[in-house]
């Protein structure tokens, strides 16, 4: 199965929920995934469908029995466990719901006309007679609703019940009715979508989780522009600093390899050299990627700034350990052999690092770090090949401003430019089209320039006078 097309076992996927929140799940064979109040499902039930498919959880006698059995087997501990249901595909007409509707402006035609009509309730032309009494008007208590959730088969039934118990539902305008329904629907619909976890999906998940600061306030549009300006390709070797916990590297890996390990292709041998300022690198978010460890180790090389700028010399590396000739190696005791191979590997790694630090001319420099950029960029630039992009990300415009000023007079940098890009999403409902009323601020700034190789004017012959 193609993990870019199809929902596969052992894959990390993004699950989006009616509450517009999302979660990441690993699809373990025979496992179950709990979506909290939205229910739970068996992993095996969703395997094989295309990624992006929308499912609905439902409960019947069979699932009830199954859940009872599990409860009995597992005992007390599992008392508050979400009952696992069956899944079915969402009906296509229900799926045609427009996206990005805001609570304060929801189109009833598109969303719920049929539910309201089906209920045969009337509506008011304006909200004139409606006095805001908050929850008092709803005659069902939360407990009532909870009880209903336990017995009902679908969220639609729950919602219908709630409407019938609403004291002044008919006093609302059609518009307000739709708003109310949409809110309730978000609360009770047992609908979820399984999405491919590309960089944008991972970013959205982190934003939903309010982890914006952890990822340097980076937005999808900014990282998208960074990838294009940096000319990221599967055959490039890039120097990177990533203070977003691996999100930036995750995006780069997607752009370079698209989630597929295709190591036979000679054009897909690119590498990301990740420099880090701590003893150990933090690329935690790569755990959500579906690449094998071997693939990651091949294409991502992590080096601390110290190792990069002050590597051991070749002599040091070679003097610390001298490989044995084959004959002596055979004679080594088993207990010493392990230690020998560890040391051999160390030497190999060190010599490799030396190449990365001293010899490689990189195809791009992509920095997302809070280290002071002017010094850093000027120290790194000689490792970058001529005519290759240098892109620095910062959460703050003032930081890239300072950087660009400091690069202006250095002839190794061509045309430092400060860039900003912002995406403005719309409530995309016909007849109710407008930009979302509120959105996330921020998104960061880029400094973009090209590495160039200055010429010494003294070396240029002066033209002969006329």
């Amino acid at each position, binding site marked *: 199965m193609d993990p870019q097309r199809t929902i596969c076992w052992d894959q990390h996927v993004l699950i989006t929920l009616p509450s517009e929140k999302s979660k990441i799940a690993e699809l373990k*064979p025979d496992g179950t995934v709990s979506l909290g109040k939205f229910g739970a499902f068996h992993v095996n039930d969703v395997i094989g*469908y295309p990624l992006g498919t929308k499912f609905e959880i439902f409960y019947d006698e069979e699932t009830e029995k199954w859940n009872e059995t599990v409860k009995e087997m597992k005992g007390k501990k599992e008392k508050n466990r979400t009952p696992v249901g069956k899944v079915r595909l969402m009906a296509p007409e229900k799926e045609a719901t427009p996206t990005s509707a805001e609570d304060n402006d929801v189109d009833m035609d598109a969303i719920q006309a049929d539910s309201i009509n089906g209920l045969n309730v009337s509506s008011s032309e304006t909200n004139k007679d409606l006095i805001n009494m908050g929850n008092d008007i709803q005659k069902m208590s939360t407990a009532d609703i909870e009880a209903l959730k336990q017995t009902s088969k679908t969220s639609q039934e729950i919602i219908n019940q709630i409407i019938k118990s609403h004291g002044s539902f008919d006093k609302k305008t059609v518009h307000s009715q739709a708003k109310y329904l949409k809110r309730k629907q978000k609360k009770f619909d047992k609908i979820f979508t399984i999405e491919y976890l590309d960089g944008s999906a991972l970013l959205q998940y982190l934003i939903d989780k309010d982890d914006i600061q952890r990822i340097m306030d980076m937005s999808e549009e900014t990282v998208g522009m960074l990838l294009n300006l940096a000319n990221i390709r599967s055959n490039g070797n890039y120097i990177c600093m990533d203070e977003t916990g691996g999100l930036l590297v995750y995006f780069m890996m997607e752009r370079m390899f698209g989630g597929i390990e295709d190591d036979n292709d000679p054009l897909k041998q690119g590498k990301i050299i990740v420099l880090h300022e701590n003893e150990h690198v933090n690329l935690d978010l790569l755990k959500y990627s579906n690449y094998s460890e071997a693939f990651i180790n091949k294409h991502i090389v992590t080096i601390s700034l110290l190792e990069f700028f002050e590597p051991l010399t070749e002599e040091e590396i070679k003097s610390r350990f001298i490989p044995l000739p084959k004959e002596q190696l055979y004679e080594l005791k088993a207990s010493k052999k392990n230690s020998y191979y560890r040391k051999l590997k160390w030497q190999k790694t060190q010599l490799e690092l030396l190449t990365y630090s001293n010899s490689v001319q990189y195809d791009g420099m992509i920095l997302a770090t809070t280290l002071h950029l002017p010094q850093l960029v000027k120290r790194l630039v000689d490792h970058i090949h001529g005519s290759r992009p240098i892109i620095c990300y910062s959460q703050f415009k003032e930081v890239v401003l300072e950087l660009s*000023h400091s690069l202006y007079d250095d002839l190794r940098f061509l045309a430092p430019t400060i860039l900003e890009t912002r995406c403005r999403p719309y409530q995309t409902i016909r007849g109710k089209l407008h930009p979302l009323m509120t959105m996330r601020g921020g998104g960061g700034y880029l400094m973009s320039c090209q590495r160039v190789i200055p010429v010494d004017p003294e070396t240029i012959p002066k033209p002969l006078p006329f």
Partner: protein
Amino acid sequence: MSDFTEYKDVIQEGDLALIWVSRTMIKPVTIDAKAVFSTRYGSFPHKDMIGKPYGSQIGIYTRGSGKFAFIHVLQPTPELWTLSLPHRTQIVYTPDSSYIMQRLNCNPQSRVIEAGTGSGSFSHAFARSVKQLYTFEFHEVRYQQAKDEFKQHGLLDENVIITHRDVCKEGFHITSEDTTSHDFSSQNKKEITLDADAIFLDLPAPWEAIPHLEKVIATDKKVGLCCFSPCIEQVDKTIEAMSNNGWTNIQMVEIQGKRYESRRQMVRSLDDALGRLRDIKKRKLEGVKRRYQVMNEMTPAEREDVERNHKPLTDKAKFNPFGKGGRVKEGDENFTWKEVTKVETEIKSHTSYLTFASKIVNKVKDEKLVEETMQKVYV
């Protein structure tokens, strides 16, 4: 490999290079040992470039004034190529194109449809990042120009197929009957299976093209669609067509890209301003006194001359902390400066609305494949 997809080290004969003269003048050039690149600052023989690494600054002393003039020789990238196009051309600029590519998750597995090709600028960016690009252009002259350019850039030998077609009327199929860059002669097949998973429509009436997509998109995966339209009424019709043709997750967005200039503003303190006024005042008072003295010592004729011609008798200001009266260059080291940003004087406040949607044609479980895989999992 093309000049766009290979990372080249050294400038060589026959290369397509971009010559950077200034931010607003970037010129494509095919390196030719016999040719010369001329600007109004001077002439740069290609042979001075050949053999140097890409990114090299090439300098000359101008024949006339003997001034040092230079250019930079760059290897083209799709983004630099976009900058090199004349600004009059209708192009999808990098803030839009990069967002579209990210949002459609373009990567080396993607199979992309683009209509229309237009200036071909976005095609280059797609070609750099995806497995296969099918691009369609309905205007015959523009089709031919784009095809020639793609050929010259080596894209047709890699992953681009351009077809002359009005997709709104005739759809996206590519057959051996078509005017297309694809060479059918070497194969038995008479038709290409597009199996596209990302579509970009930059057409006046995308709603006419949308119904034709069903037949050429991948059926077993989620397919992304983006329509690019300047007017809001086009967006409305596009949403309608998307809905009617089973596209979901419809969302329209706008992208606003801005470029900032780094500038410096002089730091001028109140104390210095007061000092300057004090200096002027003092000088004026002294002037009045001196004038009185001087005038007293003059002959009546001299006095009349001074008065008639308003001759100044006071010194020029001595305390001049802000360099008033002269031309102070931004950043002059004799003054204190604050770093500031300034957005471009004229910004691109609108390019087009981007309307995205997605579709899965066959929402079915591939039971056979699952069965096979299951056997692997449960070994």
